[in-house]
């Protein structure tokens, strides 16, 4: 196993997440794409942890932190989507253009 294959996998997964983020209109699906990008970041952190062979396992610890922050982000994100849906009757991100002139 080489470090390159894992980072390329992470890069591919992250790029797929970026594609989903840019093309999706539904707010829940945008959040799903963000979750894919976070999975890519987790793989990258752990692969670099293995590559550096850190005695403190900093990469794995920060991968755990990333997972925790991802869970918090999904909770708040879905609460905001729910609130917007309640007030505007839509979860389409293109309809949220109140700040446009």
């Amino acid at each position, binding site marked *: *196993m*080489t*470090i*390159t*294959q894992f980072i*390329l*996998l992470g*890069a*591919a*997964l*992250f*790029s*797929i*997440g*970026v*594609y*989903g983020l*840019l*093309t*999706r*209109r*539904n707010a*829940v*699906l945008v*959040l*799903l*794409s963000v*979750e*894919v990008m976070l*999975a890519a970041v*987790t*793989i990258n952190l*752990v*692969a670099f942890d*293995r590559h550096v*062979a850190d005695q*403190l*396992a*900093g990469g*794995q*610890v920060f991968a*755990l*932190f990333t*997972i*925790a922050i991802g*869970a*918090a982000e*999904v*909770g*708040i994100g879905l*609460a*905001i*989507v*729910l*609130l917007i*849906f*309640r*007030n505007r009757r839509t*979860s*389409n991100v293109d309809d949220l253009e109140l700040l446009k002139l």
Partner: protein
Amino acid sequence: MSFDDWLSTSENWVFLVIALPMLAAAVKLVTTTNVVHAALYLVGTLAASAAMLILLGAEFVGWTVVLISIGAVVVLFLFGIMITRAPMGREVTLSHPRNVKIAAAAVSFALFALIGFAVIDAFSAQPLTEPADATRTGDLGAVLFTRFVIPFEAISVLLLAALIGGIVLARRDPGSGEGGGL
């Protein structure tokens, strides 16, 4: 190192067996026209990523992904899909039109090419250290509560804030009947 040499290791076969379905599930996730199927493809992607972490020797992180991401986050997504009444069947308005898709594909491919070029340039086929050095869960816990205790506590406060924020945002005001806030 040639591709044949690379394939001669059994670990790399395991890598391919995990990585190819993972990428396929991720591509289906961003292209499917059914919201519930997208959540199920997310389960596949996260399960494969957990398997990849275990292949890298990070068992605890892998099982944490299974418990938190697959167990909790996906259930949260399914609730979100149900509550916002996202169209359950096939729906074409879930994504942007074709010209946006082409631009997005160009952007994401350029990103992948850039990262790939930089990575291959920097780390061309350096083998990873042997799994004998893999971190044991006990060591990870000891490090988490000594060297990284301040970030750990900061994450705890962040989770508490997210919990309270989620309740405040999603709660209906008893008096008004409509959603409060904003």
